């Protein structure tokens, strides 16, 4: 299947973006420089095309109860207009996808999922729905191609938000989603992001994408807003130790191993993967995902580099880069749980040579 184009594809070309295939889509990896775009987000603001992300609507009388059997976090905690980070797991407790679920109204939920996982998530949910006779009234609709979206992230988000939506309109609280009028149309604005900076994600009809993008760029320009690509998105999220599905989260890794047990409610009576997670919890995970920082200046750590401690192989890097904020090599690795101690010295093998690193606390980058 040839990769898809977002409604903003031509805008990216016009801005001179370098385009790469990602999760089945043609996406901008950078416009001018990953490092410059990264710094724009840390110091002013950046705007990212996130139209590739999937939007699944789940609606019907018993949706809340049913979704609680499919997702790890507790949907009962969601008031209308609120969102939460959660996982879709397989029976072995492995991660199919990590996503944000919003309660749009009493009986309607919006799932914002990873681009590459959208069709599989939809099929998985649909398959399980069909098997539950009490859930006949529930409908799952894949609205991904109807919507475009952008993330606007950075310390100047408040000014930018008011410039876009009006002086008297309030930013939604953290993790909340609201519908707001914008230039004769309606858009959904969620206070969330994947960069560690304050920010919003805005979803609109695909037809409104170009208009929204260009108005945002124009109004944001005096505030230092820069179009930012997937390259900066990846370095920003890694500095915060936010996991990337497909790299740090995989079908044979569970959220407890990934250090994300906070988003799993094991008190819920049943959800897919619960038994496996209880077992992991009881026996302790075999490996853990840990952030690390290189001890010396040197080559960037990268996925699949082997990790050693005192000469013993203890794991593998899943994400790594030279952090633009720290100008230093950082990454995340799955290592044997018994060795996963903060401050422990490890070695990352890069092209046959070992480079020392230290296991760190989350996040790798702390705002001063």
């Amino acid at each position, binding site marked *: 299947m040839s990769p898809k184009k977002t409604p903003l594809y031509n805008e990216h070309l016009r801005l001179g973006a*370098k385009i790469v295939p990602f999760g089945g889509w043609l996406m901008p990896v950078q416009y001018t*420089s990953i490092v410059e775009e990264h710094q724009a987000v840390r110091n002013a603001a950046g705007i990212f095309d996130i139209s590739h992300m999937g939007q699944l609507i789940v609606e019907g009388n018993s949706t809340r109860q049913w979704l609680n059997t499919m997702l790890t976090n507790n949907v009962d905690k969601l008031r209308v207009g609120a969102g939460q980070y959660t996982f879709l797991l397989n029976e072995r407790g492995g991660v199919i996808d990590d996503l944000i679920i919003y309660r749009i109204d009493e009986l309607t939920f919006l799932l914002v999922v990873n681009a590459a996982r959208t069709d599989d998530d939809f099929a998985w949910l649909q398959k399980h729905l069909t098997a539950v006779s009490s859930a006949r009234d529930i409908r799952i609709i894949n609205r991904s191609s109807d919507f475009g979206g952008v993330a606007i992230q950075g310390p100047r988000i408040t000014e930018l938000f008011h410039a876009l939506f009006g002086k008297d309109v309030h930013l939604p609280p953290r993790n909340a989603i609201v519908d707001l009028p914008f230039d004769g149309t309606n858009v959904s604005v969620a206070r969330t992001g994947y960069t560690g900076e304050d920010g919003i994600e805005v979803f609109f009809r695909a037809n409104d994408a170009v208009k929204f993008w260009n108005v945002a760029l124009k109004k944001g320009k005096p505030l230092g807003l820069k179009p930012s690509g997937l390259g900066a998105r990846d370095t920003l999220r890694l500095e915060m130790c936010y996991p990337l599905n497909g790299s740090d989260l995989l079908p044979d890794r569970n959220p407890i191993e990934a250090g994300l047990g906070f988003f799993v409610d094991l008190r819920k009576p049943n959800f897919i993967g619960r038994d496996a997670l209880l077992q992991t919890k009881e026996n302790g995970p075999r490996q853990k995902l840990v952030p690390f920082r290189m001890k010396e200046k040197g*080559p*960037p750590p*990268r996925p699949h580099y082997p990790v050693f401690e005192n000469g013993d192989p203890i794991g593998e890097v899943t994400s790594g880069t*030279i952090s*633009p904020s720290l100008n230093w090599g950082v990454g995340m690795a799955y290592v044997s749980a018994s060795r996963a101690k903060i401050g422990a010295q490890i070695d990352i093998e890069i092209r046959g040579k070992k480079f020392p690193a230290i296991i760190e606390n989350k996040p790798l980058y702390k705002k001063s």
Partner: protein
Amino acid sequence: MNVPDDFLYTETHEWIKHEGDNVRVGITDHAQSELTDVVYVELPKIDRQANAQEAIAVVESVKAASDIYAPVKGKVVEVNKALEPDPGLINREPYGQGWIFVLRIDNADDLKQLKDANAYRKQIG
């Protein structure tokens, strides 16, 4: 994309400047632009003997690691130490301060295998 007329080029995007018994080697403007921000350069050891098309250096950008090849047979006689503290020189001045190594070549005839500027321009379209 800038492709100076007085350099030679390889299929793998190195540029070659002939300097008497030596050649100076770097990566082209096109290559640095494709790689994006260079964050690390692994330089070859001085006196290393290299065959043509042998990988002897590594340029790492934020996104990926790329091998840099010896364009012809020769011995490494100089490396650009300035890249260690400032690998971004490759992005800023790919044909100048961003050079990577100098080879003493065995046989100047080997240079005839390389592309001229027009052939390289054609390659990168």
